[in-house]
C-alpha cells in the first residue's frame, strides 16, 4: 500500500464530509444572493415588515457560512410537536398559559401566532410572551412559503441530489474504514501528513462504527426532515451541520496528536450545538445552552489535563514536536513524572467523561438527546459518546504505562458505578421515552467504562464490540422514537399506547431495538456484555461488577416495563380493528438495516475478528 | 420343593382373599352386636350384614340422572383395590408368590386409589352431599398420608426394607422389635391412621345420615341396589384388611412362614381370631368415643403424625443403626 493511498484513505473520511457540507453552504449562498435579487425586485414589501427585519437580521454574524438569518422556520410549528422534556406541554407552541390555539394553527404556512413583527418588549416570564417557537425579535423577512412562488430565483439544490449527497460522506467513511481494515491488522498502523493523522486497529474499528451509524442516520435524515416539514434553508443548514459533525468525529478518531484530538472533540460540541437547537422551541434552546455550557466546561478540563501531560512529556525530555504525539507518549510513558500524570489523567477522565456521558458532568445528555432531531440524537448517542470514550482510551494507555493499571481501574470503576446508579435510579420513574433512551445510553457508557476498568485484552475487545453494538441499536431506537413522536404526537410514555397494534412495522422495529439494548440475544450487546462480565470477574474490580449487575437489573426492569407499556395493548382510539399505520419504505430501511447489522454482530464478527482482537491488544495488551 | 411352595402359596393367597371377602360382613355384624350389647340393646344378630347384602343384591340397579361412568366405576374400583390389598398383605403366610412385591407404600397407595375413586363418584353426582363428602374425605385422606408413610418409615428401619413380608418375618424372628418404643409408637400412629382411613368414630360416624357430620356416607348417598351392596362390602372389607394388617404388624405370631398346609390352616384360624378380637375391642371403644368436629380432626392427625415422627427418630437414636 503506497504512501499516497494511505494518505488518501486517512484524509478522505475528514475531507469528503467537509466537502459535502461546503456544497450545501455554497448552494445556500447562491440561494441567498438570488433572494436578495428577488427582494429588490419585490420593492412593494411594507416598510414595517422590512424595517422590523432589519435590526436583527444585520446584527448576527453568519455562524459558518450558512444562509444567515436564523429566522423562523414556520413549517415546524404546523405539527412538528415541540414535545420537549416532560415538563413541556404537548402543544407545539409551548406557550406558557398559552391561548387555546391548539397545536399550531394548522396552516403550515404562517408561524405560530406571533404578536406581530417588531414587538420586542417582553418581560421575563410574562405569560403573554410570544410563542416560544423562536420567532425571534423580528420575523425573518424571508422565505415565507405563504408568499407564493419565488420569482425567477434559481431553485435550491434539487431534492434528489440532497438525498444522494447526504449518503456520500458516510459511505466514504465506511469504505475507507473497510479498506484500512484489510491492511492495518497485517501491516500495522499507518500515518500521514507528518504524524498528524494515524490509523491503528482502534481507529479503524471506530471509523467503521462511525461510518455504519452515520449511514443509518443520514439514510433516516430525508424521512425525518420530510416529517418535520422543514423548509429549504433550515434543511440545508441541517445537512451542513450534520456533515461537519461527521468530519469532526472522523478527525477526532484519526488524530495522532492529542491536541488535535481535543480540538476535534470540541468542534463536535460546537457543530452539534445548533443541531440540538434545530427545532427552535424553548426546550431546544434550553437543551442547547446546557449542552454547550456543560460540555465546553468539561472539555476545557480535559484540555488542562492535556496541557499538564504535555508539560510532563516535555520534562521527560520528549522533543516539542512529538510531545503530544500519542505513539511516542505511549512508547516512553514510563519516564513521565507519576504525580503530574496522575493529575492529568484525573482531569482527562473528568473532562472526556463529560463528553462520554459519565458522571459528574453527565446532566446535559438527557436534555440534549431528547431535544435534538431523531437522526442527530441517534448520531450523538450512538457514536459521539463512543468517540469521546475512544479518546479517553488513548489517555488510559499512557496512564497505565506511567502509573500502573491500579489508578485508572479504581477511577473508572468508581465513575462507572456512580453513573450507573444515577441512570438506573432516573430510569425507574422516567416519563419521557427519548429521555429514557438517553439514560439507557448513560447506562451502556458506564458499562463500557467498567469494561475498560477491567483492562484485559478480552475486556477491551468486548468494550469495542459493545460500542459498535450500542451505536447501531441506539440509532435504530432513536430513529424509531422520532417516528413514534410524529405518529402519537408526544413522547410521554403515559400517552403512547398499543404501538404494535397501531403501527406494526414501527412497533416491531422499536421493540427489536429495545430488546437489543436490554442485552438479549441474538444482538451484539449480549455477546459484549457477556465478555465484559467474564473479563470483569477474571481481572477487573469484582465489587464494581457485582454492583453494576444489580443496577443493570433495575435498569432492565424499568426499561422493560416502560417499553411494554408503550408497545403492548390494543390500538389507541375506540375501534379495535383500526387500519394499522404503515411505516414508509424509506423510513423503514435504515431501521431494518441497523437491526440486521446489530444481529450480525451478535452472531459472528466474521472478518472483523482479527481487527477486534488487535484493537483489544493495543489498549489492554501491556 | 419350589412346586409345592407355589401351590400352598397360591392357596394361601386365595384363602386369604376369600376369608377377607366372606369374613368382612361377619366382622361388621360382630362389631354391631358387641356395641348393641354394651349399649343394652338386643342387637340384630351377627349375620345381619349378610341379610342386608342379599336384600340389596336383589334390588334393581339405579342410575341417577346426570351421573356418568365415574359413578358406576367407583364401587367396583373400591372393591378391586381392597381385594388386591388383601392378596398382597401377608395376613396368613409370608411365603406367597406375591410377597416379593408386597410393598407397604404400594398398599397405602392402593387404599388411596380406592378413596379417590369413591370421591370422584361422589363429585359425579353433582349434588351438594356428594361434593361435600368428597371434599371432606380428600382433606382427611391428605392429612393422614404423612402419618401413614412415616409409620411405614419407622417400621422399615429395623427390617431394612419396606417389603411387608420382610417386616413381618422380622417381627416374628425378633419379637423385641415389636415391644421397642419405635414399634409401639408406630403401631399407635398406624392405629389412628386406620381409624381415619376407614372412617370410624372419632373421625367420621359410619352410622349417621346427618348431613352436617357425615363424610363417607355423603359420598355414597346416591347409591342403591347392587351398587350400594358393593360399597358396603367394600368398606367392610377395607376395615377387615386394615385390622388384619395392624394385627400382623403388631402381633405377627402364628403367621405361616413355611409352606406347610397345616401352618397355613392354623394361621388362617389365628387371623380370624385376631381380627375378631380387634374388631370387638374397637366396637367397645367406639361406645365411649364421640365424633370430633371436622376441624378438630387435623389436631388428632397431627398428634398421630408426631407419634410416627418420634417412632422414626426414636428408632434411629436408640438403636443408632
Amino acid at each position, binding site marked *: 500500500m503506497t504512501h499516497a493511498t494511505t494518505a488518501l484513505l486517512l484524509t478522505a473520511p475528514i475531507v469528503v464530509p467537509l466537502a459535502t457540507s461546503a456544497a450545501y453552504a455554497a448552494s445556500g449562498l447562491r440561494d441567498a444572493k438570488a433572494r436578495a435579487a428577488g427582494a429588490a425586485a419585490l420593492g412593494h414589501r411594507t416598510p414595517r415588515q422590512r424595517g422590523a427585519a432589519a435590526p436583527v437580521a444585520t446584527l448576527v454574524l453568519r455562524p459558518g457560512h450558512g444562509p444567515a438569518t436564523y429566522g423562523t422556520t414556520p413549517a415546524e410549528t404546523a405539527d412538528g410537536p415541540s414535545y420537549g422534556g416532560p415538563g413541556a406541554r404537548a402543544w407545539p407552541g409551548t406557550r406558557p398559559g398559552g391561548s387555546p390555539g391548539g397545536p399550531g394553527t394548522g396552516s403550515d404556512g404562517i408561524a405560530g401566532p406571533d404578536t406581530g413583527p417588531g414587538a420586542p418588549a417582553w418581560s421575563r416570564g410574562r405569560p403573554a410572551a410570544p410563542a416560544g417557537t423562536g420567532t425571534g425579535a423580528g420575523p425573518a423577512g424571508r422565505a415565507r412559503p405563504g408568499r407564493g412562488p419565488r420569482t425567477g430565483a434559481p431553485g435550491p439544490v434539487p431534492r434528489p441530489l440532497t438525498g444522494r449527497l447526504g449518503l456520500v460522506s458516510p459511505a466514504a467513511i465506511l469504505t475507507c474504514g473497510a479498506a484500512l481494515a484489510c491492511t492495518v491488522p497485517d501491516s500495522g498502523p499507518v500515518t500521514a501528513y507528518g504524524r498528524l493523522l494515524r490509523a491503528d486497529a482502534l481507529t479503524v474499528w471506530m471509523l467503521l462504527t462511525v461510518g455504519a451509524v452515520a449511514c443509518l442516520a443520514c439514510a433516516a435524515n430525508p424521512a425525518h426532515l420530510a416529517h418535520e416539514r422543514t423548509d429549504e434553508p433550515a434543511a440545508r443548514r441541517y445537512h451542513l451541520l450534520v456533515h461537519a459533525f461527521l468530519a469532526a468525529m472522523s478527525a477526532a478518531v484519526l488524530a495522532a496528536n492529542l491536541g488535535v484530538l481535543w480540538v476535534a472533540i470540541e468542534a463536535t460540541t460546537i457543530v452539534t450545538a445548533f443541531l440540538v437547537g434545530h427545532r427552535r422551541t424553548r426546550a431546544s434552546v434550553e437543551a442547547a445552552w446546557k449542552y454547550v455550557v456543560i460540555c465546553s466546561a468539561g472539555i476545557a478540563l480535559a484540555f488542562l489535563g492535556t496541557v499538564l501531560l504535555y508539560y510532563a512529556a516535555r520534562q521527560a525530555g520528549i522533543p516539542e514536536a512529538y510531545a503530544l504525539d500519542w505513539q511516542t507518549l505511549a512508547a516512553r510513558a514510563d519516564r513521565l513524572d507519576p504525580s503530574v500524570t496522575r493529575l492529568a489523567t484525573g482531569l482527562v477522565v473528568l473532562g472526556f467523561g463529560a463528553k462520554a456521558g459519565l*458522571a459528574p458532568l453527565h446532566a446535559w445528555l438527557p436534555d440534549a438527546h431528547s431535544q435534538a432531531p431523531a437522526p442527530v440524537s441517534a448520531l450523538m448517542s450512538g457514536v459521539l459518546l463512543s468517540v469521546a470514550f475512544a479518546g479517553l482510551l488513548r489517555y488510559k494507555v499512557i496512564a497505565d504505562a506511567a502509573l500502573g493499571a491500579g489508578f485508572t481501574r479504581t477511577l473508572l470503576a468508581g465513575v462507572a458505578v456512580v453513573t450507573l446508579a444515577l441512570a438506573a435510579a432516573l430510569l425507574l420513574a422516567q416519563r419521557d421515552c427519548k429521555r429514557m433512551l438517553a439514560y439507557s445510553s448513560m447506562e451502556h457508557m458506564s458499562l463500557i467504562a467498567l469494561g475498560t476498568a477491567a483492562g484485559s485484552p478480552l475486556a477491551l475487545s468486548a468494550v469495542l464490540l459493545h460500542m459498535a453494538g450500542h451505536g447501531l441499536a441506539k440509532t435504530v431506537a432513536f430513529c424509531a422514537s422520532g417516528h413514534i413522536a410524529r405518529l402519537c404526537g408526544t413522547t410521554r410514555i403515559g400517552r403512547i399506547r398499543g404501538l404494535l397494534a397501531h403501527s406494526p412495522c414501527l412497533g416491531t422495529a422499536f421493540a427489536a431495538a429495545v430488546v437489543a439494548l436490554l442485552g438479549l440475544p441474538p444482538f451484539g450487546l449480549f*455477546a459484549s456484555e457477556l465478555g465484559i462480565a467474564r473479563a470483569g470477574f477474571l481481572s477487573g474490580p469484582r465489587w464494581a461488577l457485582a454492583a453494576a449487575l444489580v443496577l443493570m437489573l433495575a435498569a432492565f426492569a424499568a426499561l422493560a416495563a416502560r417499553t411494554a407499556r408503550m408497545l403492548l*395493548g390494543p390500538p389507541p382510539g375506540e375501534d379495535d380493528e383500526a387500519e394499522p399505520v404503515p411505516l414508509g419504505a424509506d423510513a423503514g430501511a435504515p431501521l431494518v438495516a441497523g437491526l440486521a447489522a446489530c444481529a450480525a454482530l451478535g452472531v459472528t464478527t466474521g472478518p472483523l475478528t482479527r481487527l477486534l482482537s488487535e484493537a483489544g491488544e493495543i489498549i489492554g495488551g501491556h | 420343593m419350589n412346586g409345592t411352595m407355589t401351590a400352598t402359596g397360591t392357596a394361601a393367597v386365595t384363602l386369604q382373599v376369600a376369608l377377607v371377602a366372606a369374613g368382612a360382613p361377619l366382622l361388621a355384624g360382630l362389631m354391631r352386636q358387641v356395641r348393641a350389647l354394651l349399649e343394652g340393646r338386643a342387637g340384630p344378630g351377627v349375620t345381619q350384614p349378610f341379610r342386608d347384602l342379599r336384600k340389596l343384591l336383589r334390588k334393581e340397579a339405579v342410575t341417577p340422572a346426570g351421573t356418568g361412568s365415574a359413578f358406576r366405576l367407583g364401587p367396583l374400583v373400591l372393591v378391586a383395590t381392597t381385594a388386591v390389598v388383601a392378596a398382597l398383605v401377608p395376613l396368613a403366610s409370608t411365603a406367597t408368590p406375591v410377597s416379593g412385591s408386597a410393598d407397604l407404600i404400594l398398599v397405602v397407595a392402593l387404599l388411596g386409589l380406592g378413596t379417590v375413586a369413591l370421591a370422584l363418584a361422589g363429585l359425579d353426582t353433582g349434588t351438594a352431599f356428594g361434593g361435600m363428602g368428597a371434599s371432606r374425605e380428600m382433606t382427611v385422606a391428605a392429612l393422614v398420608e404423612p402419618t401413614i408413610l412415616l409409620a411405614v418409615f419407622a417400621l422399615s428401619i429395623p427390617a431394612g426394607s419396606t417389603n411387608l413380608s420382610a417386616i413381618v418375618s422380622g417381627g416374628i424372628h425378633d419379637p423385641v422389635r415389636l415391644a421397642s418404643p419405635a414399634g409401639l409408637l408406630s403401631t399407635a400412629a398406624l392405629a389412628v391412621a386406620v381409624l381415619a382411613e376407614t372412617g370410624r368414630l372419632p373421625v367420621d360416624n359410619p352410622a349417621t345420615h346427618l348431613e352436617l357430620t357425615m363424610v363417607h356416607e355423603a359420598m355414597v348417598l346416591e347409591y342403591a341396589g347392587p351398587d350400594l351392596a358393593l360399597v358396603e362390602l367394600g368398606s367392610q372389607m377395607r376395615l377387615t384388611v386394615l385390622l388384619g394388617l395392624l394385627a400382623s404388624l403388631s402381633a405377627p405370631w402364628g403367621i405361616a412362614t413355611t409352606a406347610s398346609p397345616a401352618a397355613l390352616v392354623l394361621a388362617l384360624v389365628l387371623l380370624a381370631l385376631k381380627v375378631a378380637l380387634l374388631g370387638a375391642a374397637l366396637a367397645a371403644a367406639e361406645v365411649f368415643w364421640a365424633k370430633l368436629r371436622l376441624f378438630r380432626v387435623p389436631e388428632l392427625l397431627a398428634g398421630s403424625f408426631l407419634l410416627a415422627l418420634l417412632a422414626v427418630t426414636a428408632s434411629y437414636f436408640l438403636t443408632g443403626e
Partner: protein
Amino acid sequence: MSSAESATVVAAGLAGAGVLAGMLLPGRIRVVAVGLCTAGLGGAGLAGGVAALGGTRWSAYLPGLLPLAGLHLAVDALSGLFMAVAGAVVLAVAVYGIGYASGRGPRGPASRGVQAALPVFALTLVLVPAAASVSSFLLLWEAMAVTSLVLVLADQRERSAVREAGVWYAVMTHFGLVLLLAGLALFAAGAGGETFAQLRAGASGMSPGARGAVFLLVAAAFASKAGMVPLHPWLPRAHPEAPSNVSALMSAAMVNLGAYGIIRVNFELLGGGPRWGWLLVLATGALSAVYGILQAAMASDIKRLLAYSTSENLGLVLIGVGAAGLFASSGYPVPAALALAAALLHVTNHAVFKALLFCAAGSVVRATGVRDLDRMGGLRARMPATAGFFAVSSLAAVALPPGNGFLSEWLLLQSLIHGMTVPGVSTAIVLPLAVAVIALSAGLAAAVFVKALGVGFFARPRSARAASAEESPPLMHVGMGLLAIGCTALALVPGTLGNSLSRAVAAAGLHGGRPLAGGGLELRLDQVAASLSPLWVTAALVGGVVAAAGLIRLTTRRGRRTNARLWDCGGGAPTPRMSYTATSFAEPLQRVFDDVLEPEQDVDVTPVHESAYLVERVRFRRSVPDRIEHRLYRPVLAAALALGRAARRLAPGSVHRYLGYGFFGLVALLLALAVGW
C-alpha cells in the same frame, strides 16, 4: 458424524425452516408448516437424546459463532436424557399446537411473530442441555428466555393480565440470568477457563469460599427457573396467560432445565458442593413442594392450578437432587445414585403427564373460553376425548398406582428411606421430614386433581359457555394421544428406562453402581431390597374390577338399569348451581391451612342513600393471594418506585445544579490527588 450429532444438525435445520415458514407463509398454511417443522425438530431431539442415552458421546466447537467466545456443544447421557424428554414433549405438543393455533384468527397464537418464535424456542429447549461452555450455555439460556417471552405475549392485545405477566416474566427471568452470569463468571474466573471441561478440571483448585458462592448463585438462578418458592411468582403468572401449547412446553420442558442446571453445574462440574448447600437445595425443594401444592389446592383457575402443581413436582425433583447431593458429599455414592435416578425418573414422568394436563386444559379453554373451574362442569358429556385424556393425566399426577407419577415418587421414597444408612445428625432429622413433606404433597395433590377432574368435568355444566362446548379438532387429539401413550408406557414398563437412567446418573459423576437393574416389567433395585411390578398390580386391579362387575351381573336378575331422580330432600330437582365448585371443594383445606395461606376477605356494605341502616348492596370478596409475593415482592416494588420518584430530584433541570455536580466532582478529585491518593 454420530447419530446424535446428525440429529442435532437436523434439529437446527428444521428450526431454521420453521422460522422462515412462520415469517413468510400466509395464514392457514403457516400454522401447519411451523407445526410440522417443530414436530420434526422434536423428533430429531428425541432421537439425539435416545442415542446419547445409549452411550454415544460427541462434542463440537464452532469458533465462528458467538463473538469473543465461540460455541461449544457436547452431549453425554445426562444431557441426552433431558434432550430426549424435551424432544418428546416438543414433538407431541407441536402436533397438538397445529390444531390449537389454527382457526383462531390472525392475531394471538397464529400471528406471524409467535409462529416464528415457536420453532426457535423448541430448538433452545433441545439444545440447552447440549451446551458445553459458559458463553454458549448463557446464549442458549437467554435465547430460550427471549423466545418464550414472545410466546407468552401472544394474546397481549386481548387481556391486560397477559401484558403484566409478560413484564413480570421478563424481569424475573433476567434476575435469574444476572445470578447465573455472576455465578458462572465467578466459576470461570476461579477455574481459569470457559469450557465445561476446564471448569470440571479447575473446580477442585478453587477456595471453599468461592465454591460456596458459585454454588449459591447458580443454585438460586436455576431454582428460579424451576419455579422454586422465593423466586416463583413468574410461574403462576406466565403459564396461565400463555397459549396452552406454549405453557405445556414451558411447564413440561423449560422448568426441567432448571433441575438440569443444578445437576450439571452444582453436582457434576463443581464436584459436589458443600453439605449445607445441598441441605438448602433440599429444604427449598420441600418448601416449594408444600407451598406450591397448597396454592394449587386453593386455585380455581385451571391453568394456574397446573402451574402451581409444576412448582410442586419440581420441588420433589429438587428434594431428590438435594438428597443425592447430601449422600454424595457424605461419601455414600449408592444411595446418592438411587436418589438422583429417582429425581431423573420424576422429571421424565412429570414432563409427560404435565404436558398432557396442559394440552387437555388448553382444549377445554379453547372450547369454552373459560379458565375458571367454578364455571365449568359437565364437560365429560360434551368433550369425552378431552375428559378421558385429562383423567389419564390426573391419575398420573395424583401419584397413585396405575399412574406413572406413583413410580417415581415410590422410588424417591425408597431412596430417602434407604438413605438413613448414611450417618450424621442432619440426615436423621432431614430425611424423615422430607418423607413427611412428600407424603403431604402427594395427599394434597390427590385432593387437587380430584377437584380439577371432578369439579371441572363431571356433573352438569354450571355456565352457558360450558354447556355450549364442542369437542376440539382431531389434530389436538393426536397430540394428546401421543402423550397418553407415553404416560401409559412409562406407567406399565418403567424397567426399560433402568439402564439409561443408570448411564445418566454415571454421567452426572456418581459411580455408585447401577441403581436400577430394571427387568422388562419390573423396577428392581439391586443394592436395596425393594421391587415393584406395576404391570402385575394393574392387571390385578383390572381383574378385580371385572370380577366385581361380573358378581353384580350374576346376582341381579333384572338386567336393565332404570333412571331415577337425584335425592333432593323433597325440595325440588337440584340445579347445577347447587353442586360443589372448586372454591367450595377447597374450603376445608383452606380452613385447615389458613394461617399458612392467610386468605383475604372483605365485605363492603353500601347503605341506601337516605339512611345508613337500610343496606342497598353487600359485596363479599374472598381471595387467597400468594403470600410470599405480597410479603416479599410488593415492598420491593414500592421501594423501587419510591426511589425512582425521589431520584427525579437529582435532575431538576437547573443548569447551576448540573454544573455544581461537575464542580464538586472536580474539587473532590483535586482534594484526593492533593492528599496523595
